[in-house]
């Protein structure tokens, strides 16, 4: 478990929280909002430990007292971790929180309620929480985490101090990847660019076969450029059978087309996700028009969402590849004529 001071990339948020503990200005409701994998849960756990610590130093947890160890081993009686039971957080779970909130704390300190994926609360659950969230008994702290805060009603948002976890800036992510995983600088920078500032995603890429995936995506793009109907259908069939994680590949494909588009529009190497592939990008850029690229990326995004929503993978891929193969190199001149 990390200490607050060890958290990468959210200096300003960490500073605010430390100040709050230090100056006894801890609010009763926090919302940590931001994309997956940027460090919301990590920060929330560290913050919870700091809140419960018996001997906090400079606002951070000491890591040695009984409270700290209890939090670390997830058996602190005043630390409640609420996560979706099934696909949503239900009103019963919120009622349970309300019941517990009325009790005194077991160990005399604060009581912390950490609600993960807060946006999954049902409408009843959310409304049920409102009054409690507004004026809980003293010493109660709610920390809610959400990757989709816009799905929460404004009545919840306005009761919380909202902390927006931004994507981690590229250089910070790069250096912490080097530190955490001992990656080479070049590779770390690449992963940082592709992860869009999400540490969780970068780490997943680092363990996975990232390079291979990316090569597959750029190879696919090149093949599609040349492909006719038959080849496109064959590719779709092969991919839908062979690959488990087609969404990942489609994301890579979007990134690849995006790089070509960015190169066409700006010609700046540092804006690319794959600066190491700049020669290929440059070569490919000559084969596409901006309009086609925009269309291609939008199409892939659309199909990606459909597959995510459980569409038949093979059919979806076929539809996608037919559109990319026929359309992307400008063969569709008579379109809409």
């Amino acid at each position: 478990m990390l200490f607050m001071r060890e958290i990468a990339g959210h200096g300003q948020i960490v500073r605010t929280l430390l100040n709050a503990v230090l100056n006894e200005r801890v609010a009763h409701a926090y919302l940590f909002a931001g994309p997956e994998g940027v460090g919301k849960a990590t920060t929330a756990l560290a913050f919870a430990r700091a809140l419960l610590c018996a001997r906090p130093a400079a606002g951070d947890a000491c890591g040695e007292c009984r409270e700290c160890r209890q939090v670390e081993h997830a058996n602190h009686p005043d630390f409640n971790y609420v996560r979706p039971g099934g696909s949503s957080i239900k009103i019963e779970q919120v009622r349970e929180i309300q019941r517990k909130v009325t009790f005194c704390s077991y160990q005399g300190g604060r009581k912390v309620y950490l609600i993960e994926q807060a946006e999954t609360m049902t409408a009843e659950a959310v409304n049920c929480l409102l009054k409690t969230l507004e004026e809980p008994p003293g010493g109660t702290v709610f920390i809610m985490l959400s990757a989709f805060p816009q799905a929460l009603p404004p009545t919840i948002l306005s009761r919380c101090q909202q902390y927006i976890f931004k994507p981690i800036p590229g250089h910070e992510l790069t250096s912490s990847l080097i530190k955490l995983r001992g990656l080479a600088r070049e590779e770390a920078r690449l992963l940082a660019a592709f992860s869009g500032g999400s540490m969780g995603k970068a780490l997943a890429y680092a363990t996975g076969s990232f390079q291979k995936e990316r090569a597959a995506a750029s190879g696919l793009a090149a093949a599609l450029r040349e492909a006719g109907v038959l080849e496109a259908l064959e590719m779709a069939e092969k991919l839908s059978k062979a690959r488990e994680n087609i969404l990942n590949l489609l994301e890579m494909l979007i990134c690849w087309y995006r790089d070509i588009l960015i190169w066409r529009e700006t010609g700046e190497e540092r804006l690319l996700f794959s600066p190491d592939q700049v020669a290929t990008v440059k070569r490919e850029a000559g084969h596409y028009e901006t309009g086609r690229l925009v269309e291609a990326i939008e199409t892939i995004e659309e199909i990606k969402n459909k597959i995510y929503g459980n569409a038949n993978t093979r059919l979806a891929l076929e539809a996608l590849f037919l559109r990319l193969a026929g359309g992307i190199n400008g063969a569709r001149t008579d379109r809409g004529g």
Partner: protein
Amino acid sequence: MAYLALYREWRPQTFGAIVGQAHITRTLQNAVEAGRAGHAYLFCGTRGTGKTTTAKVLAKALNCAGRNGPEPCNLCASCKAITEGLSVDVIEVDAASNRGIDEIRDLREKVKFAPATGQFRVYIIDEVHMLTNEAFNALLKTLEEPPRHSVFILATTEPHKVPLTILSRCQRFDFRRIAPGEIVGRLKEVAAGAGIEVEEDALRLIARAAEGGLRDALSILDQGAALGEMRVTAGIVHDILGTVRADALSRMGGHLAAGEAGPALRLVGELTGMGKDLRIFARELAAYLRAVLLEKISPGDPAGEAWGDTSVIARTAVEFSEQGLIRAIDIMAGAEREMKWSSLPGVILEIALVKACRREVTSDLSSLAERVADIEEKLKNFIPKRAVETPVDETAPLKWEKLPGRRAAAQDIPGETSPLQERGTATETAAAGAKLRREPGQSGGFQRPDPVAAGEIAEVAREFDLDKIKASWGNIMGMLRKERPPLYPNFIKAVPLHVGGRRLTVGFPEGEELVKEMAERSDNKKYFEDLLGKALGEGWQVVYKYYHGEVRIPVIQPAPKDDISRRFGGGEITLEDGSEGSLF
């Protein structure tokens, strides 16, 4: 005592301290003073506008022992008990947690008991929209005629979920969103009271971000105080909100107006480098463009003031065309929506910016409409003149400027819209349109007596529209009938549907498979293509399709009367009956 968030600590305790809802507090004060308080109130409005606060103040005012005038004293035992939430006569019900019929039945049981100390028993039922249907209905009779000593105050953010039968039994008060100016005023009071130093700019930013909710504003202030150690600057507020300074927005606005995709993408790269959340940026940008649009439509609109320097907004407004602005807002709003759920929000934003900058990359209606509007704008000056000149030679735009009328028009319009330039662009467009279709040696046309004089480019662009084909369709059919009588019957119901370049789509009525098959036989197809070649010039390709329903079949037309008179410059001569002999 544990630290209380600012919005709890500074909850107004008198009517006078409630901000921005004078229409409600005045009414209630008068009612309290006159002793004419109703027995059921419904407070509705968006979050953070003061519903619960007003309900508590009203409860206090009704029960206050030392009340002098309409305001509660906040000193007597009753007031203190209510403030601390300990009073037995003021019952705050969380309707979202106690939403069933059983809880309401329980409440009804207890309504009849007289108040313990004060004059009234006040039930504050908060979040009332979450009651179940049965619970609402169970409440109806009680709400209509409660015991003399009880007052119900229902509060909700969603009055549309409350049944009409409840609404009609209550005095309804709608709480307004609080204006930014009023929020700033209240923030100043609170900041001064809590010992927080705040910059004026920061206050304005907070007020804008709060969107009319005072609680939101106080939450942000609270957070700013924690981060800035009791000193809140504009930079801190930007950090908290994840927003960017107005100059980044105005720069982006400028790039969009100028249609420069490259710099716009570079700016996105910069923002990413600073670790800004691009979703928030997209939202801000859409809101900023909206302010620009308001400025464009009604210059000097106060909406722009929330964005700081209004002169920048005014400048951006001038740079944009109205169509372009609306399209940009559309695109950004769509992108913001998509970015919410996408795993690659940055790419979505970049695509949206490219689309907004380069309207030619999309084929959606709005961008087409915009381009058409452009062309219309350019053509506007030509049309009236052209109508005059039509009888001379409709197909020779190159000659227009040689006529005195054109020159006069050129002097009328100074600067960038001189017809010379206009003609240049128009011809370019035509040339671009024709580029794909043009093949060497084929600019000659079937019905064009003098194509070269008419200007080759314009000629090619005009050559193959569907109307022309339809006009010669009769001739073609006539030739077919003469040369291949066995094939002709198959084409009786055939019609030209569509022309693109030298590619003609011919339609057969749906269901006529045999006929279409016959026409599609390669020798017949070849023959028909050759026939078209004879009639309209070489190089035709034919595609056969079916059509639905009725399509008007062109009849064999003799050259139309007015066409002849146009070409030969003659008028109509009427022959008298029986005068044939004398004429010849």
